[in-house]
């Protein structure tokens, strides 16, 4: 096979690195020389980017077949490049939905496993990996194996959330869930501050399968952490429209915004408008699942909003032990640092993911966009220092700038993950720019 051409490869945050990318329908054959598989490139940072310009990546998106679907159990086997939006397009009209979905449906099954993605239902449903029954993988040695919770469980739980570093994921089998209708019954309300926000999430958790909120992260003082709290459940057939909810036409962001378009004033205006757009204190009713789950998918290439220099996302979880005040202190620090963001999303997490490097653990998760500018590294370092002190951690799928020493402090499970890598890839053939940045040199064994 000829070597793919050298080109610039970037993910959703537009941070780009030179490398080579192979596209193939046959993942098993094409992964022979690849250092990493990647899907639709929706992770924000460098987790799907090449370690060096010589690195060859395998893009899985041409391997997009459904290999089996059982209409009685919901068990679906798909090739790693199969995209979630295609699964929904085909199976939602028949009453099935993914057990867990991230905030975009332009992700592949392989990526969903590698990131062990979570969604609005994390407090009830856990991560995607909790619903996966089997993976087919090509290990660094070239061996092709199956693994799952009951078969090669060590490999399986190292791969779930393992950022593609334990082997190439070829096929994924997981269980879809039955939905009573394709529509969502949603309640949303304006919330005046961060304490009411966390209380609102907690109070909604037991009865609502989906909860999340958007916070205005520019207003400080008494309004710190005000925002819109959303909770939803699948609508019953009696309350839902009979028709299938049309996917909205996708508008394309036709060009990169100039970098000055994103300034403290525009960010402030956006946040205030977004808050007051929700005029009624409380709204309830049946809404389209597309707007509910994937509001940003409506704009193709919305990442261009941050200009050519791109952006990163900062997502951390502040554990329950850190207490109620941790989220307030985090937001106070954010307002002080001036790293304000258009979108700041808050969500309470349920049980810790079982994957060795899965992100969620019980507590409050906060995610915000940060444009890549000269000051971004400093802001990330300061936020990380705070998160370390509170016993929290960051989400690798979003990360571009975390320092290795900071990551090691957040991640007591790192030694176990490193041991798994040594077992399944002793020669370290599999790597990404992120793994080179954060996971090398291998951390010392914990005593």
């Amino acid at each position, binding site marked *: 096979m000829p070597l793919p051409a050298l080109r610039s490869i970037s993910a959703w945050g537009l941070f780009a690195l030179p490398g080579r990318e192979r*596209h*193939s*329908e046959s993942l098993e054959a094409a992964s022979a020389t690849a250092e990493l598989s990647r899907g639709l490139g929706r992770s924000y940072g460098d987790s799907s980017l090449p370690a060096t310009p010589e690195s060859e990546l395998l893009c899985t998106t041409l391997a997009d*077949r459904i290999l089996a679907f059982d209409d009685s159990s919901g068990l679906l086997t798909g090739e790693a490049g199969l995209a979630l939006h295609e699964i929904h397009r085909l199976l939602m009209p028949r009453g099935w939905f993914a057990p867990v979905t991230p905030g975009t449906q332009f992700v592949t099954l392989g990526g969903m496993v590698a990131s062990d993605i979570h969604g609005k239902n994390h407090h009830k449903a856990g991560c995607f990996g909790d619903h996966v029954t089997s993976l087919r993988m090509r290990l660094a040695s070239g061996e092709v194996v199956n693994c799952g919770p009951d078969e090669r469980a060590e490999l399986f739980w190292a791969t779930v959330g393992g950022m593609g570093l334990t082997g190439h994921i070829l096929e994924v089998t997981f269980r879809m869930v039955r939905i009573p209708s394709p529509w969502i019954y949603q309640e949303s309300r304006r919330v005046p501050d961060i304490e009411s926000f966390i209380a609102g999430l907690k109070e909604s958790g037991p009865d609502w399968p989906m909860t999340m909120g958007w916070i205005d992260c520019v207003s400080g003082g008494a309004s710190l952490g005000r925002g819109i709290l959303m909770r939803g459940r699948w609508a019953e057939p009696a309350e839902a429209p009979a028709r299938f909810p049309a996917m909205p036409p996708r508008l394309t962001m036709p060009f990169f915004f100039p970098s000055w378009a994103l300034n403290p004033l525009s960010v402030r205006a956006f946040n205030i408008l977004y808050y007051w757009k929700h005029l009624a204190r409380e709204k309830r009713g049946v809404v389209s699942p597309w707007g509910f789950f994937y509001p940003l998918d409506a704009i193709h290439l919305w990442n261009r909003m941050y200009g050519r220099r791109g952006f990163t996302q900062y997502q951390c979880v502040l554990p329950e032990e850190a207490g109620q005040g941790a989220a307030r202190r985090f937001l106070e620090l954010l307002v002080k640092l001036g790293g304000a963001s258009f979108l700041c999303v808050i969500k309470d997490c349920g049980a810790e993911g079982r994957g060795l490097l899965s992100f969620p653990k019980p507590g409050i998760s906060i995610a915000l966009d940060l444009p890549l500018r000269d000051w971004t590294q400093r802001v990330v370092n300061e936020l990380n220092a705070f998160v370390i002190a509170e016993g929290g951690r960051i989400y690798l799928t979003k990360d571009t700038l975390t320092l290795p020493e900071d990551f090691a402090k957040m991640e007591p499970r790192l030694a176990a993950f490193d041991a798994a890598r040594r077992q399944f890839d002793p020669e370290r053939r599999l790597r990404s720019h992120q793994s080179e940045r954060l996971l090398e040199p291998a951390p010392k064994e914990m005593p």
Partner: protein
Amino acid sequence: MKTAILGASKGMGRALARVRAERGDDLVLLGRDVEELERSAADLRVRSRGAVTVIACDLDAPDGFPAVIEALFAGGARLDNLVITAAHFGTQDELEADPVRARRLLTANLANTIELCERARVALLAQGGGTLCVFSSVAGDRGRKPVGLYGASKAGLSHYLEALDHKWRAAGLITICVKPGFVKTGMTAGLKPPPFAGEPDAVARQVSDALERGTPLLYAPSIWRWVMLVIRHLPRFVMRRISF
């Protein structure tokens, strides 16, 4: 409707099979690798209520063609559309460096493809008509530096398909020559996409419409009709200078 597609498990064939599946066609998947065809059949069965079957067919092995035709029309079964998307591809540099590979490409893309069309013609006419839809290429429209040999095979094929349509349309055999411009599939992966590169799904929908209408010549995406109109009229001294 029943549609058979040679090259159904990859690229344009896969995209077209999915479009036809969602229209409710019964599908016959033809290709070299039966295991791959079965995996594609599983995918299509989730997408369609129509029947999906597979038949092994290798464009490099024309001796197997009679058996393929027999299987397609076995027991007097009717076939509405036979689509051939399969072909070899190689850049001019690759083929100049490897004359054996060049011969294999020219044989499969031209002589063998035409032989399969000829056998299908007889069978389709015998059942009273049908549609034969074959993927040629814009590379056959003009002798261009990067695709001279591949283009030669496609130029010959386009020529044959045009004549076939002229001779047999009145008798009920509709011939469609599809000339895809650059489409982003596994075949073109690794090449730098030019302006107007098409997505396989959009091109597949165009081809599917052409099957309904019996359009004899289809450029896909459509803009390539105008791109090629210009390129066909460029003087030779320009063609010698540009690398396109």
